[in-house]
């Protein structure tokens, strides 16, 4: 089927709509795209219409993230807020064996029927689809990496401060201030001084007046969209804070490292080398060094809990599951359960779209092995779906928390 392509002149005329998965990160990333001439806009609607548009436009058995993303786009296009002749849509495409690689087709199918002039752009690193007007150049990619790093740092520190802040909103203020500073740095330079920036961030967060009361830390892992997006997980982080817990959400960088590592793993498992494996190996080394640098900065500062080293994650995986399990979030979910349990975050919520195929194996399928290895691990798997009610989900999380509190008392 013919579809509209995003061309070079469109950079000047079109607004590119982007679904919001990670509020802190995406704001930074969009500002970077802006400097490269792409006018992007984050979709923040959380109205019921999003789900309804999703239900109308994609197959009902499609997983929840697809339904929400397509729903959010369709709602935006129909809202009248955007001129369809001057609007494009951006969606990610991973190209793995999970059905997420088909979201773009689902989206395009319904966009084509109702707004055929609207181009849909694929954001992928697997060489799947290209639009002449949208190019991930090396300088752009490099800046995006920094955007992810700073986004991760802010998210990680924000989650460690927000539950303890004495004046409500203090942590958010620090995040907002840094967002502004970083946007400026990305435009005017200075963003590469990672260590300096990390340290300043750490100090700014450390300066927030916080209570010393120890709270239960709860890890949120699972399918990438549901794990991060408040729209999908019914504001899970906020709920946990309300319940007097500290949420811990693994970094976005981990997912990128996971993708890079898989190419290398496959090369080893199936005994081949090509340009791709080499490129990904170099990419992995570079990104992993960046991760270690961040961890070191946090540890040196000493006030906050540092994220785990990605190599530890890989080592943990090897105990329970082969790293060849690489569809969806694959082995990373199992490994995250193990590493969290190992490093003292025994209370874990594994979020997943209802009927998620890889998670049958890597989440529910491995829970028993993890539980055997870490008898104190307290894991609950929560399914997200347009029909699943919040009260049901929260009741199950409360059960997990009751166990956590009992364990904490002992």
């Amino acid at each position, binding site marked *: *089927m013919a579809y509209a392509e995003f061309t070079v002149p469109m950079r000047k005329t079109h607004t590119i709509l982007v679904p919001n998965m990670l509020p802190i990160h995406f704001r930074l990333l969009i500002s970077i795209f802006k400097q490269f001439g792409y006018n992007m806009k984050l979709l923040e609607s959380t109205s019921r219409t999003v789900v309804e548009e999703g*239900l*109308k436009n994609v*197959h*009902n*058995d*499609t*997983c929840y993230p697809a339904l929400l993303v397509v729903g959010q786009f369709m709602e935006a296009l129909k809202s009248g807020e955007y001129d369809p002749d001057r609007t494009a849509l951006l969606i990610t495409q991973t190209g793995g*064996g999970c*059905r997420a*690689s*088909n979201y*773009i*087709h*689902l989206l*395009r199918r*319904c966009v084509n*029927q109702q707004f055929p002039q609207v181009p849909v752009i694929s954001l992928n690193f697997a060489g*799947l689809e290209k639009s002449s007007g949208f190019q991930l150049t090396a300088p752009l990619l490099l800046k995006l990496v920094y955007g992810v790093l700073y986004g991760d740092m802010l998210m990680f520190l924000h989650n460690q401060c927000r539950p303890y802040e004495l004046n409500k909103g203090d942590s958010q203020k620090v995040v907002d201030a840094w967002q502004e500073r970083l946007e400026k740095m990305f435009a005017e330079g200075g963003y590469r001084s990672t260590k300096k920036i990390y340290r300043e961030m750490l100090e700014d967060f450390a300066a927030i007046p916080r209570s010393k009361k120890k709270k239960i830390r709860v890890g949120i892992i699972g399918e990438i969209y549901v794990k991060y997006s408040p729209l999908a997980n019914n504001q899970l982080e906020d709920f946990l804070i309300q319940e007097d817990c500290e949420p811990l959400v693994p970094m976005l960088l981990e997912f990128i490292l996971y993708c890079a590592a898989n190419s290398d793993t496959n090369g080893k*498992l199936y*005994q*081949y080398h090509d340009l791709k494996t080499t490129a990904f190996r170099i990419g992995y080394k570079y990104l992993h060094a960046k991760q270690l640098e961040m961890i070191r900065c946090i540890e040196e500062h000493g006030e906050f809990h540092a994220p785990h080293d990605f190599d530890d994650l890989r080592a943990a995986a090897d105990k*329970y*599951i*082969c790293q*060849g*399990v690489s*569809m*969806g979030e694959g082995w990373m979910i199992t490994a995250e359960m193990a590493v969290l349990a190992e490093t003292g975050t025994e209370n874990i919520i594994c979020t997943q779209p*209802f*009927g998620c*195929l*890889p998670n*049958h*194996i890597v989440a*529910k*399928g*491995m*829970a*028993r092995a993890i*539980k*055997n290895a870490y*008898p104190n691990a307290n894991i609950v*798997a929560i*399914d997200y779906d*347009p*029909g699943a*009610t*919040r009260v*049901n989900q929260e*009741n*199950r999380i*409360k*059960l997990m*928390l*009751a*166990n956590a509190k*009992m364990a904490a*008392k*002992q």
Partner: protein
Amino acid sequence: MNISRTHSHKHPYALGIDVGSTTVKAVILDQNNQLVYSSYQRHFSKVRETIATQLQQIAGAYPGISFPVCITGSAGLGLANSAKLPFVQEVHAAFVAVNQRYPDADAVIELGGEDAKIIFLTGGVEQRMNGTCAGGTGAFIDQMATLLNVTADQLDEMSLKAEKTYPIASRCGVFAKSDIQPLLNQGARREDIAASIFQAVVDQTVSGLAQGRTIEGKVLFLGGPLSFLEGLRRAFVKTLHLDPGNAVFPEDGRTFVAYGCALSAMNQNEVYSIDTLIEKISGAVSENNVLADPPLFSYQEEYDRFRERHASHDVKRGDYRTYEGKAFLGIDAGSTTTKMVVISEDRTLLYEYYTTNKGQPLDCITVALADFYAKKSPGLVIAGSAVTGYGEELLKAGLGIDHGIVETVAHFKAASFFCPEVDFIMDIGGQDIKCFKIKNGAIDSIMLNEACSSGCGSFIQTFAMALGYDIAEFAQLGLFAERPVDLGSRCTVFMNSSVKQAQKDGATVADISAGLSGSIIKNAVYKVIRARSPEELGQHIVVQGGTFLNDAVLRCFEREMGRDVIRPAISGLMGAFGAALYAQEKCSGESTLIDAEALKQFSYTSQAAACKGCTAHCSLNIVRFAGGGRFISGNRCERGAGIQPKDILPNLYDRKLEMILSYDQNEQPLSPIATVGLPLALHYYDQMPLWATFFKKLGFQVKFSESSTRETYYKGQSTIPSDTVCYPAKLTHGHIESLLSQGVDFIFYPCMSYTLDEGESDNHFNCPVVAYYPELLMANNEKLSCKNFLYPFLDLNRRKHVVHVLHEYFGAYASKKAIAAALEAGFAALDKHRAQIAAEGQEIIRSARAAGKPIIVLAGRPYHIDPEINHGIHKLIASLGMAVITEDSVAALAHTPKLNALNQWVYHSRMYRAAEYVTTQPDMQLIQLVSFGCGIDAITTDEVRRILEEKGKLYTQLKIDEINNLGAAKIRLRSLAAAMDA
């Protein structure tokens, strides 16, 4: 943890309130933690009022006393939050109570109104609740009792007299229902069904909740259903193999959680007077987050106009007591209701009868028919009769009815009577949603609800009854509801919890009634029709079925579609009316219908038996009629019904399976070096020739797991960690058990992200489940170790690597060279196998064409040839006079058409090519088999449909799961056959 430790400031009393989905329980403990007061009451969704009543009773019994308090329960969460009272999670409350009273218990099973829970106490404490998709709870038992028209207690009594149990899908209440209904309609013993229902609840608990952990030792059973229902208790004890001393049913089982809640209250510091509590609870304002739609009708006149418009679509009426001449009888034996009409030659409606059949359509019709015969005018002669619906075959056999007619065709006939230019019909009955498009005077495409959203019409009814209303009254309430709740559009289990939440948030019964009507429509429009605009459906829409008699449902539909539709006044009788029209059309003068005299003598008995026709061992139900003759149901093929298999066309599904199985017998080495077990599951149905040959060439004895049966599933049931994975995957667990019990030296089951590239797709993945299931098996079956279970990661497209890995594993047995040679032989065998499939496919096509029979490409995945997975659907198709071939036998004959999807899974890509090929063959149609839970098919079904429909072919999809009842599939297939004839 020891709760009984003495507190420094121990309260004299403590109060625990357990607010469940259907009941409120209150318990008071004294300072020695002894239970001194308890109460139990159904709340009929009036939660706050019920608690207030109970509290007042407590105030009477304990005047002037203040209590520390705790609230628990699924409906207690929101209440406690808004009343600012302490809350304890209910499973945790149970845990606290068990520790106090039964410290030596090993596990606890608690079934509540809508939740099921399990606690493992020894060997690592673990507490689990059912996921969001699960039946097998008290509400499910209530629903099933309603279906049988008995109380839960009567159901229990009946179950104790059972002789056998039928397999009933246990994952989800709705599935179970679609298993039970046809059993009822076919006349199975109600006692046996009652026992089967309890067994399903047990299976659900064992597989869904325990998820791979064995329930053993001393087990405590809690909750309402388990304290009331003896049959359920027995089923649990029997299935879990518990000694009498190890199955504990506390006398206060139904208030046990409230007891734990009171124990938790004992640790609270704050105390409340009863008055304060009543005040806090009654005044608890819930956060108002109910999503509301606009009212269905704002004022009476608007409703009157609506009624007037619809009243205009009616039939002429006459009286059967005075009419003289030929008349035609039509019967619709639906899933929950039975309808009968008699029309005259000019199609005047002479007689109508409508009743809920209480699961016994044959009884209903004999009564109605006797009444009709007694009162009809002597000059009225029945010149023809026809029957449609679930009970069609039974009634036809028993009462000598002239014709059977597919439901869809009956509805089409009736709809055309009211609107000759009709191009879209939507019928919502008790259990089904049926939609069909009409093109060129024939049914063009049919959409039925999948098993998971069925039960829609009867859902409103069950709900109305649960709230204490009659269905008509309940529906009426919704018409002028101020704020109809938006309940979403998922299956009924989900709707249940949406309703729960809405009630908690203060929605009135009227709002819920209107909301349920809306949900039914949203289900139909988004799930079944999947329409984006009314234009897609057609210009002339006729709606019918009993559910549309509900004006609120009709209104919701018109609103959702944005246009007026036709609802005939006899909306609930359309199937029967269509059957009568058909009887008239086919009339040859004389009718074979049972006459008044014979009817007086009519009686029947029913009996269960197992078919011995083939290895499927179908559960048969044999109904014998007193006047001679019998009716057999439950059989999938003609064999069980006593019909000789002549003229039955060869069928590639059976052949393919035989070919795979032959590798188990042929060419085993004489003195094997070891025995390897290969499971008959998932990708092995595609690659068996390769691996069987490989191992035999190396000198191994090859053993396959048993051929799948329901028993295979049960064998592995307790090691299944995810209850929503597809049935083919679940069966794999049983195959592993089968191999282990055969004493093989090791099982070989490789993980494969990729399968062999067939060069016709963007990538060549396996689906995640097929690719990595061995990892899951290893992690969940304690009997597997790295010694007896080998699951290397292989990419068959890279043979050098495969040889290398296999040498690592089997180097002790053979040289690398020998391994490479054996692998080559394996690939050669696989190629030969594939060529044979293609050749036999061609042969079947040739013979079908010679016999003038149509050909069906039954397109599924390789493992769909497993008889326990396909439930004999191919035999059913063959019995309708069509030849059956597989997708892989013709996939190579076409290239992949242009797709709107990323074509990256090989098994699925074969279906695209097969569909493309079918469009070039005038005498072929394609039926797509979809396993429930196959997320990838959410993408492929839309594409396969598009490929077929763009070239003028029909699209038929059959969704299969553990349900082994083929009722819905039969309707679809017969409709397809009717459409092909047109």
